[in-house]
């Protein structure tokens, strides 16, 4: 008996990434943001999400990719971890797909080190690989980095 999971998928540069649907609160278009000086580069700003203030984190920064063209507006994937909500800025939104657990494999060791920590593994879809983003890890890492590098990264 195999279990299936639903994933909300999106693209960051050429990476095809997914997050468990359960963790996703909503997906919204680009929002005006208030920048936060002194914060780590990845923190692009703060969004007013119907009265709730949400921090926007650029996945491109996290995954060590080149910054996107200022003309291209990112999409917001709002994920929540219990009490907090965070917006992940991605390039493009994909479908919600259902994936069989059998297809999962942990990331090959050749994946770049800075990315490997944030990717839980890959689902081998027929036409491409779906990388599973470890949101908990990403957010936790964000914490520690912001605490340390807050002053450097403005």
């Amino acid at each position: 008996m195999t279990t299936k999971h639903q994933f909300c998928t999106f693209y960051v540069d050429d990476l095809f990434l997914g997050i468990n649907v359960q963790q996703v609160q909503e997906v919204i278009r680009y929002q005006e943001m208030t920048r936060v000086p002194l914060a780590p580069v990845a923190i692009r700003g703060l969004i007013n999400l119907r009265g709730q203030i949400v921090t926007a984190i650029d996945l491109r920064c996290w995954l060590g990719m080149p910054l996107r063209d200022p003309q291209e507006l990112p999409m917001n994937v709002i994920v929540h971890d219990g009490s907090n909500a965070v917006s992940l800025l991605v390039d493009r939104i994909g479908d919600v797909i259902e994936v069989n657990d059998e297809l999962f494999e942990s990331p090959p060791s050749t994946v770049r080190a800075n990315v490997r920590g944030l990717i839980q593994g890959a689902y081998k879809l027929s036409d491409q690989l779906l990388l599973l983003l470890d949101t908990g890890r990403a957010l936790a890492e964000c914490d520690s980095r912001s605490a340390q590098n807050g002053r450097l990264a403005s």
Partner: protein
Amino acid sequence: MEMVDDIVKEFLVESYESLDQLDKDLMALEDAPDDKSRLSSVFRTIHTIKGTSGFLAYPNLEHLAHVGENLLVLLRDGALRLNAEIATALLAMVDAVRSILSRIESAGTEGDETYEGLIATLERLKNREPAAKPAVPALAAPQKIEIDVEQVVRELSLEVQAAVTCSPADCKLAAQSVGKPRARAKSKPKTKPPASSMPSNSTHSELKTQIENHFEATLKLEADSHSETTFADSAAVAIEAAAHDDHAVSPKKALAITESRAGADGGSASAEGGDKSGSVTDSSVRIDVQLLDKLMNLVGELVLARNQIMQFSGSIEDAAMSAASQRLNLITTELQAGVMKTRMQPIKNAWAKLPRVVRDLSISCGKKIQVVMEGEDTELDKTILEAIKDPLTHIVRNSVDHGIESSDVRVKNGKSAEGTLWLRAYHEGGQVIIEIADDGGGINLDRVRQKAVEKGMVTVEQAAAMSDRESIQLILLPGFSTAAKVTNVSGRGVGMDVVKTNVEKIGGMLDIQSTMGKGTTLRIKIPLTLAIIPALIVTTASDRYAIPQVSLLELVRLEGEHVKKSIEYVHGAPVYRLRGKLLPLVDLSERLGVVPPNADMRQSFEDRIVNIVVLRANDRQYGLVVDKVNDTAEIVVKPLSRQLKGIGEYAGTTIMGDGSVALILDVMGLAIAAGLTGDVRDQPHANNGKDGSHSGEPTQTLLVVDLGDARRFALPTSMVARLEKVSGSVVEYTDGREVIQYRGEILPVVRLSNVFGAADSDSSHPEELQIIVYAEEDYSCGFAVNRIVDIVETELRLKTTRGEHDNLLGTTVIQERVTDVLNLRNLARHGTKDERLGASRR
């Protein structure tokens, strides 16, 4: 089932409240054991608990309360006099009752604990005076709260009829007899919900209490013979209403009628009657705090919506619209004030248990301490009140255990045998100040330093170099305790740092002042409320920021020529002369790094209009330079997200009128980041550590120096013996080394700019040399630098990326600049080899 739950809940809430009152009453009774009215109040409370617990089938609780009540009866009737032992036993009983109640609350049952020991003690105390009045058994007999209201009313009305028909003198007698059943009646504590929501049993008893209170009130009238008829009338009305109508006419209404009549003839009587029956509190309703919080949030959102509408209506010309938005504005403001008020509670709620704490502690420490409270009615937001309860207890425990000396020591030192602990609260400049002061021995700073060294918190050198103010701050470090032995009271060293953290968590500040032999004063400054605050909105680099108005002192605007004239520079740091005093200036855009840092700030001020926001951080002032001052606004404070907590410059976030997000500046954090005030640096802001807790990194005081190039260097001040400024002409040479005569010795001088290869040839013989004197036991050495920049306190997180250089301990970031930390010891011993300039052995 829910009905029962509600009753239990009601019982619990009510009982907790009355237990707090009991603590207070019992302690007051210790001072004035003959205060009859207080005794009766204590008796009534216990009796009510007993009655209700019997009704709700909590036999253990009932039994305990019963035994306590028996003892109280003797006290009330004067057969026994309250002494410390009895008071202790009664207080222990109160505690036992409290713990049973909390078990009921958490588990739904009262548990198996029967408190036999306590009961035995209470019994023993009671039996010491065996000559109990015959009345006692009769009084103690009835145990159920159910009262046949009809019978009571019948009884009372008979007596009232008698009273009506006879003379005033007889009337008094009759009234006294009316009063008698009172002892048997189950009077309820003051606070009651509206009668209709109560189960009918309680209603009866309440009714009865109220009826009795009428008599008490109207009795006062009896002296005046003219009022005789009124008395009879009012009483009759009340009784009639009560007898014929259980619910249709509420007892309150009957009460009102009686009072209004009684009041017509004797105003004072009605007032007193009102007081005693608790009609004032009858008009209050209990509200779930969660509901209040929700209301508060909604009001917060409403305030934001109001702001948006106000902004919108300002941009269109429509009389009707602007009138409507004006009304909305007014109503919202009032609503906000109203909801805020519901959350405000007098600080005495947090203080209530402190006298008890002091009493118990002082007895166990063998000290005599009186507690003096001032400003008990100062109001605070409920959440803040909750947050300071524990810190207050900690501080009070500390004062009792460490602060106030035992009686004989006090007498020896020429003080009164009884120590005093003051609790003061007052408003000052939008903040609430809470002071906990004692007239004890004060903090022995030498011992503090010594302990800190013993525990390895600071080095000997650091300790020696510390000012008294700095030393006091040591007691706020985690794990610090000067208590010679660990008692069950304190001394485990988990006190003051927790206090500090808690206080800072709610945006407060903790300040300690102590005079040896005179006493210690702890001052907590906290904001009135956390939710909605007035703020000044400023713009810098086209971003808006909010500055809490609490810290705002004034605004200064400089234009054109004025800028050049009035902004001066102390060693490159801009200052403004504000009414003759120098005000250090901090450029917000530069501090936040939103414009490239200017090597010369002079340039940046030259061509623009300078807006200075004069702020207060702790006791110092500084001026924040912003691009534009927009407006003031009420903002709803929202906490920083987890990812941003580490940035000390921000206190929170808020949503502006147009729906965009703005950051709230942390006035203190900015001052710390700018390295502005000594006092502030002593108290690293709560946000500096992760989640406000201590990050475990010890903070170090560093001296920041400039060697003439772009690089910055720092060295621990603990390594510095002295700083000297000498003229370049005193440098002499021996064996190819530079030396100066210093305090009768020959001090070798090492130019750090040579060691680190700073291209600085033209200033190799400057007029003045800044010498950092370094001394160890057997040799000393002077290091010449170009400029002393600052002294900062920072958590030293060294990155040893350039570890190959022995003369550097590592690299860190100080005031947003990469700074190399010097290894002075190495420099003194070896660094000189490289340069053929020497640190010679003495």
